[in-house]
């Protein structure tokens, strides 16, 4: 492989990482909002949050990407920049999975903690922010770590729409070189290294958060 072809691959890595960060942020926001909303007092709020998670968990990420890229512009006249279209599709889909993680972790906090908050006259928002979340978040990290790897693998899907991520640039290089085994081997290796680093980072984060709760 020549230096020029490596440059294409590196650009792809850049796009993949950028997409990963944006969609992870959107997914995290969606998981906390929808996950906490499922414990809300109002039935309507619970229903809307439940509908969101069921619909987005039920459908395929790739179908969602196609929908955002090809149906939104025609049906609603919203032509999004590819990066934002990819972020929206991935963030909403994986956010629905994350909402289940948040809901489960909140439900696993000892009920006495919630009752203690009520007895001390905390508002629901204070209870969530000061009592429930600090205890629930460290428990969520291992599941979120797995979800982050799934999201990384999911980012490869946007290459089908022609967005220049790592998988797409790999395909370009393959067309230039015609050496499939080598190129796809490199691609898989790069994805694996990113996944490895992410897992390590999340493990460190978990240790830090657990230490803070213990303090």
């Amino acid at each position: 492989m020549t230096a020029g072809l490596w440059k294409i691959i590196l650009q792809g890595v850049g796009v993949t990482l950028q997409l990963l960060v944006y969609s992870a942020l959107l997914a995290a926001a969606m998981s906390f909002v929808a996950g906490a909303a499922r414990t809300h007092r109002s039935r309507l709020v619970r229903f809307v949050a439940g509908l969101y998670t069921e619909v987005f968990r039920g459908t395929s990420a790739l179908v969602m990407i196609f929908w955002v890229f090809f149906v939104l512009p025609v049906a609603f006249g919203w032509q999004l920049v590819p990066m934002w279209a990819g972020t929206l599709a991935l963030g909403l889909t994986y956010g629905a999975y994350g909402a289940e993680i948040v809901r489960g972790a909140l439900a696993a906090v000892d009920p006495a903690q919630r009752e203690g908050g009520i007895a001390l006259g905390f508002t629901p928002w204070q209870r969530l922010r000061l009592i429930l979340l600090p205890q629930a978040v460290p428990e969520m990290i291992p599941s979120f770590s797995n979800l982050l790897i799934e999201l990384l693998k999911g980012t490869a899907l946007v290459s089908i729409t022609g967005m220049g991520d790592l998988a797409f640039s790999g395909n370009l290089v393959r067309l230039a070189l015609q050496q499939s085994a080598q190129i796809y081997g490199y691609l898989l290796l790069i994805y694996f290294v990113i996944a490895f680093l992410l897992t390590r980072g999340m493990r460190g984060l978990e240790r830090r958060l657990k230490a803070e709760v213990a303090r």
Partner: protein
Amino acid sequence: MTWDWGAVADFLPYFGKGLVVTLEALALGSLISFALGLVWTLLMRAPTRWVRWPVGVFTEFVRDTPLLVQLFFLFYVLPEAGVTLSPLTTGVLGLGLHYSTYTMQVYRAGIEAVPAGQWEAATALSLPVRRTWTAVVLPQAVRRVVPPLGNYVIAMLKDTPMLMTIGVLEMLGRARLVSQQHFQFTEPLTVIGIAFVVVSYLASLLLRTLERRLVR
């Protein structure tokens, strides 16, 4: 927003064909992942680390890299090695291999969840290895294994659209073909989006019934 029921009607026959291919890929992919996952689990229990280590690294690698790129790898590299398979066969192999690295964890957890006392009792009764597995360990492990395996089948259903990229005409492939011919993207893509929600919902209902049967 425009919605054309005529386009939906035009798409339905193709949708049916696509659905059949999707379910076919799902069924075969699940069978491969169930069988291959068991092979990985047994290899990981091998006495020598010269077997455990390579199997561990390989399965970790497959689990942490995108299925899409793995499909490209199989689809373009196997012919170079002289193995020519149809797109559907390649896709089913890819799905099965990818998900076998998940099912192996399910099997391992299921076996490990059998209390140590059960193993010790089997030893105390001097049951032969075969009977220890078939009469003591497996009946207890299966109960713990079925629900997560079912969840992975549903996850695999949602990954079948990727087979489109190597030329399998499953639901998304059909939808794309039809929408490109008629320049109507909204209806076919929305129909299959709803179809995925419906099929995975039905599958989860089926799974819940199965779980209840097993617990009894």
